């Protein structure tokens, strides 16, 4: 588990808006958009990687806070 990280949409086009990432997120970072997930409160991300590990479509990746 990353100490502090930041979630990124690495493959936004692959999102099928199933909402699993929202379900497994312990804080409030993500929201369902029209055709893909949206990162609405990135500052809340604790870097737990639940979303990345649960996403069935390889859309999300949690990176180091400092990483671009």
């Amino acid at each position, binding site marked *: 588990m990353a100490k502090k990280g930041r979630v990124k949409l690495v493959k936004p086009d692959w999102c099928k808006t199933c909402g699993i990432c929202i379900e497994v997120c312990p804080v409030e970072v993500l929201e369902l958009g029209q055709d893909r997930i949206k990162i609405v409160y990135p500052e809340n991300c604790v870097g737990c990687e639940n979303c990345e*590990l649960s996403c069935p479509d390889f859309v999300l990746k949690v990176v180091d806070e400092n990483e671009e």
Partner: protein
Amino acid sequence: MAEDINRYLRQDKLPHIWCPGCGHGTIMANMLRGFARSRLDQDKTVVVSGIGCSGRATGYLDFDTLHVTHGRALTFATGIKMANPELTVIVVTGDGDGAAIGGNHLIHACRRNIDIKVVLFNNSIYGMTAGQFSPMTPTGATATTAPYGNIDQNFDLCELTRSAGATFVARGAAQQPRQLIKIFEKGFAHRGLTFIEAITQCPVNYGRRNKLGGARDMLNWQKEHIINQTKYESLAAEERQDKIPSGILYQDKREEYTERYEKVIASARGSEN
């Protein structure tokens, strides 16, 4: 940081065809994370799959991959492993493909203890053909071919494969990705028939028909009902009724099949001289 799985995926074949909320992608991704941790050689790994939703996995995986007839992936995998024991051979199958039409091959591969990693995506239904009951559909559940409720008894595949001779038996679920990664990492490192049942949700053809809600509800069902083996064993018999144990359920060392055949070769050569 979680392992990067992109090097194991054929990027140009994605996004995959699995439905929104289907757990197959989660299982496959965590299988790849386990593979990354195992440090096995990507070029020396062959993945074989059969027919059904699970069968489509091979199209996305950047290895030597073979997509074969319904239920027969293990037979092709056996030929590959026997031919070249240096290869890591993985079979991706489903509850219909692996437990119904391919059930006989499954028990015989276990009996031989041949070093093949069998990953069975169990979504309790025939998803690709839109919702017929499988040998893993719970008794009483509804399916298109069981409109009045399924009267069949479902298998416990982990008990079955263990009895048949598998030397690594584990069960994980899409809801528990960290446990899955560990199971895969350990399973890929095991030498002998490795059986991993990965429970996954089919919201479209199983959940909806059985009023289990969407993918998120089905994951919550997994959270409630699939519990670690240690915890499971601490429960009283009546408390276990609606629970399913997960984790590495069994592991043992027994001589592997291709190693035994090497001895046949040695002995045949000896008797020839």
